[in-house]
């Protein structure tokens, strides 16, 4: 897994609430058997007219040239709906390292963390403050200090992440390695559990 310590970048503002994983990656792209290449279909039906790559929808933020960066900022309840990890893969493959929202759906949050994409939960007021910034302004996310800063104004907020997941993100460790190292403990647990 990719590690992440600190990032300063411009951001893409997606002022939509309840962005569900069917929008992030429509079901017809779930026929793949590998994790690669999902970025080109990220937000597919919001990005293109009639599924046609030669007809980008000009009102969608990913198609607006003034916006760029490795940070996606979205309104509340981001990632609700289906458990498809393809949503996290497509966000990562597109080039995002951080998603900022005032509220994340649980399964998406876990999926993002398991793929080295950091979900940063901010207050409603801070989210609005980010949305109010110009396209050129940048955000800095410092995982070690657990802070997010709007660089132009200097205003900053701290965010929550559990200590274990923080260590994983900082070092690029994944849960599967951890669990594999616990096998004996799990076998011992099973002896009692299966009685």
């Amino acid at each position, binding site marked *: 897994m990719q590690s992440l310590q600190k990032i300063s970048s411009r951001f893409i503002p997606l*002022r*939509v*609430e*309840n962005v*569900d994983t*069917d*929008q992030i990656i*429509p*079901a*017809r792209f*779930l*026929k*793949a*058997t*590998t*994790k690669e290449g999902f970025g080109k279909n990220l937000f597919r*039906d919001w990005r293109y007219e*009639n*599924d046609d790559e030669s007809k980008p929808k000009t009102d969608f933020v990913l198609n607006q040239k003034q916006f760029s960066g490795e940070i996606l900022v979205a*309104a*509340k*309840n981001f990632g*609700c*709906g*289906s*458990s*498809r*990890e*393809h949503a*996290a893969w497509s966000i990562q493959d597109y080039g995002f390292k951080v998603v900022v929202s005032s*509220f994340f*759906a*649980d*399964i998406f949050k*876990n*999926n993002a963390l*398991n*793929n080295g994409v950091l979900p940063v939960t901010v207050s409603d007021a801070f989210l609005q403050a980010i949305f109010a910034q110009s396209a050129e302004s940048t955000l800095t996310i410092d995982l070690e200090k657990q802070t997010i800063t709007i660089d132009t104004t200097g205003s900053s907020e701290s965010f929550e992440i*559990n*200590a*274990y*997941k923080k260590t994983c993100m900082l070092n690029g460790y*994944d*849960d*599967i390695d*951890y*669990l*594999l190292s*616990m*096998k004996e*403990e*799990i076998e011992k*647990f*099973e002896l009692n*559990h299966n009685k």
Partner: protein
Amino acid sequence: MGKTIFDKIWDKHVVKIIEGGPSVLYIDKHLIHEVTSPQAFSGIEKRGAPLFRPNQIVATADHNVPTMNQHLPIADQLSKFQVDTLIENCKKHGVELYGLGHPNQGIVHVIGPELGITQPGMTIVCGDSHTSTHGAFGSIAFGIGTSEVEMVFAAQCVMQTKPKVMRINIEGSLQNGVVSKDIILYIIAKISASGATGYFVEYAGSAIRALSMEARMTICNMSIEMGARGGIIAPDETTYTYMKGRPFAPQGENWNKKLTQWKELYSDADAKFDLEININAADIDPMITYGTNPGMGLSVTGKVPTMDSISDPTEKQNFEKALAYMGLEAGQSLLGMPVQYVFIGSCTNSRIEDFRLVASIIKGKQKNASVKTLIVPGSQEVAKQIKAEGLDKIFTAAGIEIRQAGCSACLGMNEDKIPAGEYCISTSNRNFEGRQGAGARTLLASPLTAAAALLTGKITDIRTMLN
């Protein structure tokens, strides 16, 4: 202090609590399907690790299968490759597979309970958010991502932070024409599509106790639609009667031993919940959704909210976006609006009782000529039972074709899609933009409301058809 049923089961499955982090939670049953498992199989192979407990895994093909001519090779090459990959992976790793053509095949959340695989007190996971369905049996069941599928392959455990616990009490009797789908749509409309995020939800009260197992499954199924990690209902005699004698349910002496354990699974009288919500069953009307998330629902006789009822600017913008997608006006009534499609199916409502309900309404009548249908049983077993009970004849006489088992138009992965701009009354669980096909307009409702639309071709208050 007393414990909730959730705490009782959770605590029994914690292998370890990581300091400042999640718990390592042991998983009793792991259900897998073709869409969210291939990357987990290749992941574990890349690590060179074997599957830790393959005999605790059951696989089926459901999301990406055709619902006609299942005896023929799958025509869509990508779909075929994905289903073939599942067959190959299961064979290679010693996992029991109920694939196409197998009598046990069906939607993963229909076959688990049907076969007696789902049992009280268990932890159950699947790479599918509607795994919450299995909570109807008093189990902790929740959806996971593919990385977590790989974790269960590797160590039969997932890493989970313990959620808060909410109890929703529904007391009293339902109106005639109101069923469990209406209860859950009512709850989600009340607390919103994110209202239970961070929680596990226990459903309790006399209205829940009165429900059949299949009706309870419909409620737990849609827990995720309000953001909940899962839903749970304490097991009771209804549960045990449903389970007894099913192929994978405990037998003989083992049944009695398990029954004693299951009877301990309830929330203690002095258990504390992080949140409690009380609902009067009689307040619930037949429900229908008007928007693009399951929280945007109302009584079938109600009106779409007006613009001035929403103050937050982002929310207003989203509300307008949803109405524009749905082709509806703020403040309008839905009753009498024509619909072009009716979809009866999905892990929410595709069980035998759902088909019995629909049959009771359409018996001896003709389908409205303007309505196209997608009627899809949840499993081979449900399809078999439909025939055994003669319900297929009622559908055929009404001019309605019954298809073969699969997820179908619930998520539009196969060819069962609703065309752009058309309205579909759907017994499924999600009305997201494009969910049933690009531009499709989904109206979530109960099997009864769907049956009414089969006959009238319109959004209809089923209560006016019952006497």
